[in-house]
């Protein structure tokens, strides 16, 4: 089965992944008495859960590693803990606890990092989260999901509630444009086709997917049919699903708010490297610390914006 979604064309329709996360938690809280939520002094968006279920909420203070260990202890006791704070800090500061306490013990801790990718742009590299996906996906037993908008973030969180093993969900911060126009089928591991591919397929996730969609439209006006696929799950990645989602395209362009090393582009390249006939171009942060800048400025800097994507694809097609 192929999963497809309809693109929202109204740029004024916005949504917050962090709010969507909390909406899903509130629903989970009412149906599952084992859902706990922990934060490390970054719980603004989960305050409604804390208010509704104070005995299943804890702010552990600014102590990310301790939070991960406590969550693993809860999970070993049969609970379903969600933990959340800034993605860059959670995944790197508490990486060893995530490896040993969560993944090695293989307990169902749900790790939700907010401010993913370049969404904290002007706060600089300490808050840019462009290594987290690569680190998370290199740890056995971990599932890694990078939703593209608030609707998808909610679906990912709902899917995580009874997920039996560790999962990392990396979301944005603040209001972001909605990508999906309406409801669609979400399943961990299954990419979603937003525009079918002919010559080129752009595979992306997170908010930067909006640039892929705009680029696809611009290319269509030039007579180039570049498909768009939302690869929300970076791990596990099914080779067959990726091949099916690429359709007829043999030029695959990956686009991610992440270092071009170790993230979505690397994962796609790994599975397609076993197949003959694909050319893979990876767009993202080119293995450097990004400068201070808004998200849009940083997209432009690294040619992750729609113009940059169009230019890159056009030059590839000219050379091909």
């Amino acid at each position, binding site marked *: 089965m192929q999963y497809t979604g309809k693109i929202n064309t109204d740029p004024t329709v916005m949504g917050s992944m962090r709010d969507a996360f909390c909406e899903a938690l509130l629903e989970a809280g009412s149906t599952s008495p084992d859902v706990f939520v922990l934060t490390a002094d970054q719980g603004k968006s989960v305050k409604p859960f804390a208010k509704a279920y104070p005995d299943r909420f804890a702010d552990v203070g600014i*102590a990310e590693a*301790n939070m991960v260990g406590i969550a693993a*202890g809860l999970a070993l*006791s049969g*609970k379903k803990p969600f933990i959340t704070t800034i993605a860059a800090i959670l995944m790197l500061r508490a990486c060893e*606890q995530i490896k*040993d*306490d969560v993944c090695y*013990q293989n307990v169902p801790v749900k790790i939700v990092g907010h401010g993913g990718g370049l969404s904290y742009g002007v706060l600089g590299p300490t808050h840019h989260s462009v290594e987290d996906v690569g680190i998370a996906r290199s740890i056995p037993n971990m599932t890694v999901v990078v939703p593209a908008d608030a609707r998808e973030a909610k679906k990912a969180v709902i899917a995580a509630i009874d997920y039996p093993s560790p999962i990392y969900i990396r979301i944005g911060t603040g209001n972001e444009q909605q990508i999906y126009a309406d409801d669609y089928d979400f399943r961990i591991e299954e990419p979603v086709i937003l525009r079918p591919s002919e010559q080129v397929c752009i595979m992306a996730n997170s908010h930067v997917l909006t640039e892929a969609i705009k680029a696809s439209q611009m290319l269509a006006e030039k007579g180039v049919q570049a498909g768009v696929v939302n690869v929300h799950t970076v791990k596990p990645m099914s080779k067959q699903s990726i091949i099916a989602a690429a359709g007829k395209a043999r030029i695959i362009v990956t686009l991610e708010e992440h270092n071009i090393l170790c993230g979505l582009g690397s994962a796609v390249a790994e599975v397609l490297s076993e197949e003959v006939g694909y050319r893979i171009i990876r767009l993202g942060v080119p293995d450097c610390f990004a400068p201070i800048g808004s998200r849009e400025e940083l997209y432009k800097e690294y040619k992750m914006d729609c113009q940059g994507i169009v230019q890159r694809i056009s030059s590839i097609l000219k050379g091909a």
Partner: protein
Amino acid sequence: MNEASSKSDDQLARICAQTRANILRMCHKEGMSHVGSAFSMVEILVALYFRVMRIDPADPKSPERDIFILSKGHSCAGLYNVLAQAGFFPQGRLGEYCKFKKGMGGHPDLHMLPGVEVCSGSLGHGLPLAIGMAIAAKRDGRDKRIFVLMGDGELDEGTVWEAAMAAAHYKLDNLIAIVDRNGLQADSRTEVAMSLEPLDAKWLSFGWNVETVDGHDLGRLVEVLRKMRQTPCPDKPGLVIAKTVKGKGVSFMEDQQAWHFNKPTAEDLSKGLEELGCQ
């Protein structure tokens, strides 16, 4: 679910000696070390498993059980022996120590052996895990206790103190931590590596109920740990500083830095077993 086995004090003393003897044999055979670290905690574990904790080796996953977390996972040769003697698995399995794909590695793995509650190895992980378990036990209304044993060198880790704050903050009087205060860590004496003293004052100031005890006096250990288990200080987690000797029980290993990593030779084994009365 039992707190005390029917074994006599003399039998428990014998179990301590046999545990040390087996640790020596296992570490000699497999060339694995951490003998000194395993020796210093033997009486602590025997007190817990034979006199203090509510356990049922026939039902090792009972939700009502007390839990023991060996945070200083490198000393697991001692844990394996005490678990076997307490009846969690046949003593014959001790021959699997460090064998390929068997359940008894140089650090414990909860998936592989009955009675092992967590995977440990890297230090500073046990106390946060214990807090999660203690919160869950309170939430579920279970009258159970979470015990966690840390090395004193382990207290250098920042997560221990993050967790020390949190356990007191959450008023976890169902959590009892023990420090194996043998005074030596891998490279040096603890006070040379990083000053820990005044250790009791540190934990007191963090809001814990603190007791200090001779960590090789089985009777006193049982007394203090039982009191903490049965009548905890309301709203306060408990901390037992067990003053121990690294390598305790074999004269040439006692308080010797080298016996953190040293591997017992055939001669060491022979002399050690003789001193332990376990030839």
